[in-house]
C-alpha cells in the first residue's frame, strides 16, 4: 500500500485543482479550508513516506506494471522525500499567508484561478522530485514553468505582463535546451530511465565523450536559466519586483530550488561523480557559482526597490548552493542542501514581510524604511531576523550554512573559493544591514506617529512568526536537520 502513496499525493493535488471550479458556488473560504486539509494530508503522507524510505530503502514504482526499461518509474528515496517534505512545509506557510492576505494586487475574483495554478504547481514539483525518467522530468518542468509564469502574470498590472513575457521566453529557451540535452543523451545511450542511462553512460562515455559533454552543458545551461544561475538570471529581478509577494516567495524560495534539485539529480544520478570528474564538468559549475556569488551581491547593492534587491540576493544565494554542489564532496552536498533549506525559509520570510510592509507603507524604496521597526514590529522584526540570517550572524540558520560551506571548501584547500565566500558575505552585509539599522535605530522621522502600530491581519501574522521561529530554531539546533540531510546525501550517491 505504501508504494501507492507518492502517486496518490500527486492525484490529491490534481483533484484539488480540478475541484476548485466546482466549488465556486460555495463561499470562498470553504475552498481555502479544503485546500489546507489537502496540504496537511500531503504533509502527513510525505512524513510517512520519509520514515518508510529511511527504514526500508527507496520505493520503486513502475507505471503500468512494466519492467524498468519499458515504462516510467518513480524512485522515491531519502533525497526526494526529504525535499518534498521541505517544499510542502514551506508551501503551507505561504498558503496560510496568501489566504489571510488581502494586501495582494490580485482581485478577489481572481483567487479561484490563483489556487488552481498553485495546486498544479505543487503537483508538478512533487512529480519532478519523484520521477526517475528524463523525459518525464521535462514534462513536469513544462507544467511548472507555465504555472509559475501564470502566477506572476495574474496580477493585472502594466509591468507584470512585460516581466512575465520575458520570463516565458527565457523559460522556454531553458526547457528546450534541457530537451536538447535529453535528446543527445538518448542518442548516445538509448534509454530515458535515469538508472539505465547511468549504467550505459559509465560504459559509453569513452566512445562519445564530446556528445555527453555537450549534453550535460546544455542541461546545465537550460536548468541554469530556470534556476537563475548568474549569467542567465536576467528575468528574476523583474519577475520579483512586479509579481505578488506570495508568488515571488513561491518562485524564489521553492521553484528555483526545485530546478537546482533537478540539476543535482541529473549530475549525480545520471552522470555519477567519476564520469563528471573525468569530463571535468565541476570546473564550469564552480566558475558559474563564484561569479554569481560576487556579481549577484554587487547588483543587489545598487538597487533601490526592495523586491528587486531581494531578487538579486536570491541570485547570489543560488550561487552559494551551486558552489556547494559543484564540490562533489559529501560536505559540499551537506552545505548545499542545508543552504537550500535555510535560504528557502529566509527568502520566504523576507518576501512575505516585504509584501506586508509595501502594502501598508505604500513604499518600495529602501531608504523609506526608517523607523519602520516601531510602526510594524512583527513584519519588520521578521525582515531583520531573516536579513541577519542572510548575512550569517550566529544563532541564525544562515550562519550554519555559511559555516558548512566554508568547511567544505576548506577540506579541498581551495583558498580562492574561501576568499570568494568571505567577500560575498561582506557584500551581503552592505545591502542588508542598512535597512535593519534604519528601520530600528533611525526613528526621528516617524517620531510623532509612534503609537499607530499597524495591525497586520491575523492570517498574515502567524506564518511570519512561524518563519521567525524556524529560522532561529534551525540556527540554534541544526543537528536533527543535519542527520536527515545525511540520509539524503547517502541515498543520492548510492
Amino acid at each position, binding site marked *: 500500500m505504501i508504494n*501507492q502513496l507518492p*502517486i496518490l499525493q500527486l*492525484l490529491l493535488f490534481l*483533484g484539488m485543482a*480540478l475541484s476548485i*471550479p466546482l466549488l465556486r458556488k460555495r463561499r470562498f473560504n470553504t475552498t481555502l479550508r479544503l485546500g489546507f486539509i489537502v496540504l496537511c494530508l500531503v504533509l502527513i503522507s510525505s512524513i510517512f513516506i520519509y520514515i518508510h524510505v529511511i527504514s526500508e530503502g527507496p520505493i520503486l514504482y*513502475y*507505471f*503500468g*506494471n512494466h519492467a524498468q526499461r519499458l515504462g516510467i518509474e518513480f524512485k522515491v528515496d531519502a533525497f526526494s522525500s526529504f525535499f518534498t517534505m521541505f517544499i510542502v512545509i514551506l508551501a503551507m506557510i505561504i498558503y496560510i499567508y496568501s489566504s489571510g492576505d488581502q494586501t495582494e494586487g490580485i482581485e478577489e475574483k481572481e483567487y479561484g484561478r490563483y489556487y488552481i495554478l498553485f495546486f498544479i504547481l505543487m503537483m508538478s514539483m512533487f512529480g519532478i522530485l519523484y520521477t526517475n525518467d528524463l523525459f518525464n522530468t521535462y514534462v513536469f518542468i513544462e507544467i511548472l514553468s507555465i504555472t509559475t509564469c501564470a502566477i506572476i502574470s495574474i496580477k493585472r498590472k502594466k509591468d507584470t505582463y512585460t516581466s512575465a513575457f520575458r520570463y516565458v521566453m527565457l523559460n522556454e529557451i531553458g526547457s528546450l535546451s534541457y530537451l536538447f540535452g535529453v535528446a543527445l543523451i538518448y542518442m548516445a545511450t538509448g534509454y530515458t530511465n535515469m538508472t539505465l542511462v547511468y549504467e550505459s553512460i559509465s560504459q559509453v562515455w569513452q566512445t562519445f565523450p564530446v556528445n555527453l559533454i555537450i549534453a550535460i552543458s546544455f542541461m546545465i545551461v537550460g536548468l541554469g536559466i530556470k534556476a537563475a544561475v548568474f549569467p542567465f538570471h536576467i528575468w528574476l529581478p523583474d519577475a520579483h519586483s512586479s509579481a505578488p509577494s506570495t508568488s515571488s516567495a513561491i518562485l524564489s524560495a521553492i521553484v528555483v530550488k526545485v530546478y537546482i534539485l533537478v540539476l543535482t539529480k541529473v549530475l549525480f544520478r545520471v552522470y555519477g561523480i567519476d564520469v563528471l570528474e573525468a569530463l571535468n564538468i565541476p570546473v564550469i559549475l564552480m566558475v558559474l557559482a563564484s561569479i554569481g556569488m560576487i556579481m549577484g551581491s554587487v547588483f543587489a547593492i545598487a538597487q533601490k526597490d526592495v523586491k528587486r534587491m531581494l531578487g538579486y540576493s536570491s541570485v547570489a544565494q543560488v550561487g552559494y548552493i551551486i558552489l556547494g554542489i559543484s564540490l562533489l564532496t559529501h560536505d559540499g552536498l551537506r552545505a548545499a542542501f542545508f543552504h537550500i533549506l535555510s535560504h528557502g525559509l529566509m527568502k520566504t520570510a523576507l518576501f512575505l514581510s516585504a509584501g506586508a510592509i509595501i502594502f501598508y507603507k505604500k513604499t518600495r524604496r529602501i531608504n523609506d524604511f526608517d523607523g519602520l521597526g516601531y510602526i510594524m514590529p512583527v513584519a519588520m522584526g521578521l525582515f531583520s531576523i531573516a536579513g541577519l540570517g542572510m548575512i550569517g550572524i550566529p544563532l541564525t540558520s544562515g550562519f550554519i550554512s555559511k559555516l558548512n560551506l566554508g568547511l567544505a571548501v576548506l577540506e579541498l584547500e581551495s583558498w580562492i573559493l574561501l576568499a570568494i565566500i568571505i567577500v560575498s558575505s561582506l557584500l551581503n552585509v552592505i545591502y542588508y544591514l542598512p535597512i535593519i539599522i534604519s528601520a530600528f535605530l533611525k526613528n526621528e522621522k516617524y517620531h510623532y506617529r509612534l503609537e499607530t502600530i499597524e495591525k497586520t491581519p491575523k492570517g498574515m501574522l502567524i506564518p511570519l512568526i512561524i518563519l521567525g521561529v524556524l529560522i532561529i530554531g534551525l540556527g540554534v539546533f541544526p543537528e536533527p536537520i543535519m542527520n536527515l540531510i545525511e540520509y539524503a546525501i547517502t541515498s543520492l550517491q548510492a
Partner: protein
Amino acid sequence: MEDKIVKTMTRMLLPFIQLYGIFIILNGHISPGGGFAGGAMIGTSLILYTIVFGLPKARKKFSHRAAEFMESGGLILYVAIGLIALIFGLPFLTNIEAGFSLGEPGKIFSAGMIPIIMIGIGIKVFSTMVSLFHILIEEEIS
C-alpha cells in the same frame, strides 16, 4: 465573412471533417493518428466554424459550459482509468492485467484501455484548442 459561398461550403464540409476526426481518434490504436491528431482535426473544424460564422453563433454551438465540462471531464476520465488499476493493487495506469479486455488485434474495441484513453485525449485536445481560440478571439471584441 458575409460571403455566401464560404458559408455554404463550410456548412457542407464541417460534418465530413468532424467525421474523419472521430474516425482517426477511434482507430488511433490500429492505424496511424490517435487522440492528438483526431482531436486537432475536430478542433480545427470548429475554429473554421467560428471564423466563418462569428463568435456569438460559435458560442451557441460550443457553449462555455460545454468547454469547461469537457476539459476537466477529459482529465478526470484519464485519471479514473488509471485509478481502476489501483483498486486491484496494481500500479497506476496498468492496462491488461487490470482487467481491460485484450480483444483481437485490428478491431476497434481491442487494445484494453487504449481506445478509451484515446477518446479522452481527443475530447481534451479538441476542447482545449477551441476554448483557447475563443479566449484569444473574445478578447478582441470586448
